């Protein structure tokens, strides 16, 4: 994990140097003088050799300094801490919506295997995975916000304004989780111990929740962890559509204005979050399946 983190930071740091054109000239515009260029280069540390610049950048990162926005002049870390709560809420609500909805219909589909309900669930799940989230978002806005007026059309006005974005983001997750839960449950309910429990007269609820679901949840947990990454990326699109002031919409506006320190900081932060979530998922496995142990 350490090597991965260093690699990620190196890759993100190199973004500034791979970008075509001189960032200093870009910031100062067409009327930059050689003195002002030299002055800014020295302030940004761009006059030092690359390895030194990287070490300087990383020293800042470890102290919570991700640089300063080229455009607003604010600290990138400050921007992230202002916007992170909205993206985090969106991710949590979407995961909750996707997991609860996905697991519920996945379990019912498995219990009613090869019925119309099962086939319907599978088709709807596949449509949920295949439909572009920005497209779903637009029609949710049109119907529930514009015509029915149930929700605000855009912007952040508390929990209420996160309902439609969470449904938008969670639909694809729900589809993936429903498919995985169904196949995982089908595999588990064919096991001998389930047949034994059934023969001993265990009621349906006990059979599903106590005996089947916990074991069926192991691959589903992996998927939920992986979905988190997709949600982080999906948040970029969803936040833009709903005009939510989160990290996703910030990254799009930062790219449009070529605000590289902000893009760098956001991508580094999101990649770090993704790695941490994957690590947490690995740890949850050991709780769900005591046979798995990490050295």
């Amino acid at each position, binding site marked *: 994990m350490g*090597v*991965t*983190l260093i*690699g*990620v930071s190196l*890759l*993100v740091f190199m*973004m500034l140097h*791979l*970008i*075509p054109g001189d960032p200093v000239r870009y910031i100062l515009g067409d009327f930059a003088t050689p003195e002002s260029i030299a002055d800014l280069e020295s302030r940004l540390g761009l006059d030092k050799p690359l390895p030194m610049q990287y070490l300087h950048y990383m020293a800042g990162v470890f102290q919570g300094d991700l640089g300063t926005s080229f455009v607003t002049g604010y600290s990138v870390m400050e921007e992230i801490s202002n916007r992170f709560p909205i993206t985090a809420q969106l991710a949590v609500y979407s995961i909750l919506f996707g997991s609860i909805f996905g697991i519920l219909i996945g379990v019912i589909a498995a219990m009613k295997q090869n019925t119309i309900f099962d086939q319907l669930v599978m088709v709807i799940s*596949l*449509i949920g*995975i*295949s*439909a*572009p*989230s*920005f*497209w779903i978002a*637009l*029609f949710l*806005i*049109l119907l529930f916000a*514009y015509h029915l007026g149930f929700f605000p059309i855009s912007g952040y006005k508390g929990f209420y304004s996160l309902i439609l974005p969470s449904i938008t983001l969670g639909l694809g997750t729900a589809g993936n989780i429903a498919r995985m839960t169904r196949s995982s449950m089908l595999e588990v309910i064919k096991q001998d111990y389930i047949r034994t429990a059934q023969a001993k007269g265990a009621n349906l609820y006990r059979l599903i929740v106590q005996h089947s679901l916990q074991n069926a949840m192991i691959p589903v947990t992996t998927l939920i962890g992986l979905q988190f*990454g*997709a949600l*982080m*990326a*999906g948040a*970029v*699109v969803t936040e*833009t*559509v709903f005009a939510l002031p989160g990290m996703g919409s910030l*990254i*799009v506006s*930062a*790219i*449009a204005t*070529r605000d*590289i320190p902000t*893009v760098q900081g956001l*991508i580094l932060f*999101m*990649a770090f979050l*993704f*790695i941490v979530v994957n690590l947490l998922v690995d740890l949850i496995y050991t709780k769900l399946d005591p046979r798995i142990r990490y050295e």
Partner: protein
Amino acid sequence: MITKTETTLQPAEWQELEKAPVSFFGMAWKKLRKNKGAMIGGSILLFFILTSVFAPVLTHYPVNEMRYDETLKAPSSEHWLGTDEFGRDIYTRILYGGRVSLLMGLVAVSIAGSVGVFLGVIAGYYRRLDLYIMQLMDILLAFPSLLMAIAIVAVLGVGLTNAMIAVAISVIPSFVRVVRGSVLAVREKEYIESARALGVRDWKIIVRHILPNIASPIIVLATLQFGVSILSAAALSFLGLGAQPPNPEWGALVYVGKSFLSQAWWMTLYPGLAIMLVVLGFNLLGDGLRDALDPRIK
């Protein structure tokens, strides 16, 4: 060799056996044909490929011709899917846009597939390089794929070609992982050991013995990633980072349509529907291929 007279098979069973395809891919094709979902998926894709190729025959409206007397017209017999803010026919733009969207998917999967298969084979076959290549892939996998595509566009700049490259790079790690895993399983087989013992060169072993035996997972992954790539490319265009208007790429059409959503829903509905159907087609076909190419599934 067993002849008809030496077996206890009934003539009808023998005939069936003789008719049965012997090659692995022949059997897979037989299984695939029986899979309803895969056939529906394949038909959807064939429909979109044909309508994109024969777009000039299927419509008489020029793709970018503006008609200011016909702006924002609802679907009618004259304009089946309505018109946009410049009076351009949406049906025509979707047909031509299919060329761009499908091409974006094709280019992205071709680049990612070629690089991914090459790196995956090297990592799986030459264990000395495995650690370095997989470490690099772990680093790339630390970025959610669309996020990585966005980061690459930030570096390369906005545009159709750069979006294709960005999507391709973001898909490479999944190819490398799958190919490496398959090579690791195949390289320990006796026939590879025999070839090595006979002094067959590495590249010949890879091309003649390893690649044909790992083709199935690559085909399945490429099919599924095709849909993912089209979705990512559409998302980039929707964010204004990929294809730029007036390019009729489907994501770009939705991007333009969103500004007129309350007045002209058709500008957004139909291009989005096209994206969904194509991705659904690739998902259905990919699922079917996975079942058909898995020898454990009868």
